[in-house]
C-alpha cells in the first residue's frame, strides 16, 4: 500500500505525516509512506487545498487533518479481504 501526504510543508502537513506514521505502526500494515510537496505534483492530484492524503493514488481527504479512526478505516478498506 502506498500512502502519500500532500502538502508544501506547513505545520498541518507535518502533523498529518506524524499521524499517518503512528497509525500505520499501530495497525501493523505494510505501507510505504511518501510526501508530495511540489505544488505542480499536488495539482496533478486535483487537490486545491492541503493538507491532503492519498492512498494508492486515491485522495481520501483534503483541507483538514483526519482523525486516526478515519485513517484506520481508509487503510482497512484497502486491505485484502
Amino acid at each position, binding site marked *: 500500500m502506498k500512502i502519500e501526504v*500532500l502538502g508544501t510543508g*506547513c505545520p498541518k502537513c507535518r502533523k498529518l505525516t506524524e499521524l499517518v506514521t503512528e497509525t500505520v505502526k499501530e495497525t501493523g500494515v505494510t505501507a510505504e509512506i511518501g510526501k508530495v510537496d511540489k505544488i505542480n505534483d499536488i495539482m496533478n492530484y*486535483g487537490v*486545491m487545498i492541503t493538507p491532503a492524503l492519498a492512498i494508492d493514488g486515491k485522495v481520501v481527504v483534503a483541507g*483538514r487533518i483526519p482523525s486516526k479512526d478515519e485513517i484506520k478505516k481508509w487503510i482497512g478498506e484497502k486491505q485484502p479481504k
Partner: protein
Amino acid sequence: MAECCSGGKTRIIHTCSGASDVGEIADKTARKLSKDGYGNMTCLAAIGAHLSGFVESAKGADENITIDGCPVACAKKNLEHIGVTPKSYILTEMGLVKGKTPITEKIVTEISNRIKEKKQKTRTDADKSGEGSCCCG
C-alpha cells in the same frame, strides 16, 4: 492553485461553462474572479467524473460557489451530488437572458462585481461571528 497557510478561508469557484451565451459568461466570470484572487476556479468536469482530488477539495473547502448560466443549474447540481451545498449564482436570475445576451467584458465585469459585493456582505456577517482562520492553525 493548491492553498494552505493562505491566512484566510479557502473558496473554490465552479462554473457550468455551458454552451449557451450565459454559459460562456458564467465561464468568463469564474475565470475573472479567479484571476482577481477572489477564489480558485476548478474544473466542474472533474467533479462530474468523481476524480477524488477535486471531490475531496470541494468537500474540504471553507466555501464553494457555483456560477450557472441558466436555471438548469448544472454546476450547483454537480456539487449537490457529492454532498456539498454551494453558494449558487444563476445568471438568468441576475438579469441576463439566455440566448439574447452579448458576451462582453462589460457584462463579465458587472457580474463579477455583483458576486463580490454579495459575498462581501456575507463575509462581513461572518467576521462579526468570529469565523475564519488559517487552514494551518
